[in-house]
């Protein structure tokens, strides 16, 4: 049997790949020395890993010592950005000693929400949630919802903008809606995600069009939605203003209305409400903690989030990402959330 001999030739540890395993040890003494060095190295490495395994699991209830920020989506998206900006702000101002971001993507964020609800009593795990996750819970009939966790605070929100191609015949929202009413199949819509689809559904409802007749071509992300408009696949789009702003400014797209409660400072786009369609669904971001935490722990987290959003780093993040601050916590948050869940679930029902 050959196989028994080959690996036995020399105790070479894996990492230094330059080592030649075929060379037999010169003297037994040297061999023993090599083994001793290897044993010491192994003990050191394994010991260090064990030590860090223990320390990374500790930290317990002290949110200021060791904090995990959960993004319920993969790297690069809106939720991930929110958590990484929070991490930056907390780090730069030493609000938390050790803070890391963990991505738990999948099923519109409901997988991460499900995980969060199993982390009962661990206040140092904070997840970001948002309109899309509330919609995901309703759409997928997820076994858990936000009532199974501890909502902490609504922090920021973003708004969608209704856009068409720059050379589109529809110059105003009314033009577009008139044509849409006449033949819903001819005016196809697009957008970068579930939230965008909800906004166009809401607009259809407010304009008196059957949402079931809405032709919606789903794209992933504002970039793809832009392309779908530019190459004529879709006639109109609802998509995040952040993703569209440069295209609008560069004259490639035309903005017809902003799905926001009021105009944004420095942005000359009328709201949908101004134009007679009361569509104000916002893409909000909320911090959520696991269930089963004490009132003291909850107020500590609220303090931490409050301190984070007051940092200059966070202010700059708001500006860069065009987030509108809408901080809300306490009992007002709970009643607002209950209302919002009802409204979103009703819209999702229209998609089914």
């Amino acid at each position, binding site marked *: 049997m050959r*196989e*028994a001999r*080959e*690996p*036995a030739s020399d*105790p070479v*540890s*894996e*990492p230094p790949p330059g080592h030649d395993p075929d060379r037999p040890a010169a003297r037994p003494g040297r061999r023993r020395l090599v083994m001793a060095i290897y*044993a010491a*190295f*192994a003990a050191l*490495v*394994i010991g*260090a*890993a*064990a030590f*860090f*395994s*223990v*320390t*990374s*699991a*500790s*930290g*317990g*209830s002290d949110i200021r010592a060791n904090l*995990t920020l959960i993004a319920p989506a993969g790297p690069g998206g809106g939720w991930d950005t929110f958590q990484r900006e929070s991490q930056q702000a907390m780090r730069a101002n030493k609000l938390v000693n050790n803070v*890391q*971001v*963990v991505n738990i993507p999948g099923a519109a964020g409901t997988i991460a929400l499900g995980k969060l609800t199993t982390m009962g*009593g661990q206040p140092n795990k904070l997840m970001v949630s948002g309109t899309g996750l509330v919609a995901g819970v309703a759409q997928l009939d997820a076994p858990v919802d936000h009532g199974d966790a501890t909502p902490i605070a609504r922090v920021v929100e973003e708004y969608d903008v209704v856009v068409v191609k720059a050379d589109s015949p529809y110059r105003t929202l009314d033009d577009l809606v008139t044509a849409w009413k006449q033949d819903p199949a001819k005016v196809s819509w697009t957008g970068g995600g579930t939230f965008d689809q909800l906004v166009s559904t809401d607009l259809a409802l407010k304009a008196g069009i059957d949402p*079931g*007749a809405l*032709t919606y071509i789903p794209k992933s992300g504002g970039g793809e939605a832009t392309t779908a408009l530019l190459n004529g696949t879709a006639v109109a789009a609802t998509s995040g203003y952040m993703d569209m702003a440069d295209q609008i400014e560069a004259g490639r797209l035309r903005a017809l209305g902003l799905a926001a409660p009021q105009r944004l400072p420095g942005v000359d786009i009328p709201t949908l409400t101004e134009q007679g369609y009361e569509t104000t669904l916002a893409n909000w971001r909320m911090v959520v903690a696991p269930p089963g935490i004490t009132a003291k722990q909850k107020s500590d987290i609220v303090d931490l989030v409050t301190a984070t959003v007051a940092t200059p780093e966070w202010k700059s993040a708001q500006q860069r990402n065009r987030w509108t601050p809408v901080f809300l916590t306490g009992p007002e948050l709970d009643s607002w959330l209950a209302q919002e869940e009802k409204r979103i679930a009703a819209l999702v029902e229209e*998609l*089914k």
Partner: protein
Amino acid sequence: MSTSSTPEPHGPTAGGTGDQDPARASDRPPSGSQTPGRWGFFTGRSGLVIPLLLAAFATYLVVGNLTMSIPKGADFPGPTFFPWFLAAVAYVLAALLVVHYLRHPEVPAETSGRTYTTFSDWRAIAWCVGGFAAFAVLLEVLGWVLAAGLLFWCVARGIGSRRAVFDLVLGLVVSSLIYLTFGIGLGLPLPSGVFGLFAGGN
């Protein structure tokens, strides 16, 4: 090696860049002819597992299509159109493959000169597969360092290493190094597992 005249036993691995002509393969004398008693109908026909797999997958698609809840008013082609097409093609291909394997049994080339009762080394595979299954089950219980060390040990053993203690230490060194570089250094979330029980905290 490039001028060697012996046929490569595993030339076509990922892409099938080599000779797959079944007629030519059957020209070779079966190397296991010394032990004819052990050779039955399925000898050389274990490839039937491929059409079986394909038919099972097609059935999965069909069942999925039939039980799918499609929302009202979905335009053609809806979510089931493409899978229906694939399932139909898969059944046809599975039938063709069954015919292929019945008519051209595969005779594996043996280069070691020894013959075995099975072409594949099932014990080695069992170590590797079992090791990985154990890793998947135990990862969050034992933690990265122990689970990955165990996986390393199982695979090394399956592939032929016989130095149990040395391998175990080596496995732990490798998993620890990975833990230190990727978990601690780069911040990948690798579970602590049982080590968490020693942690202070609450």
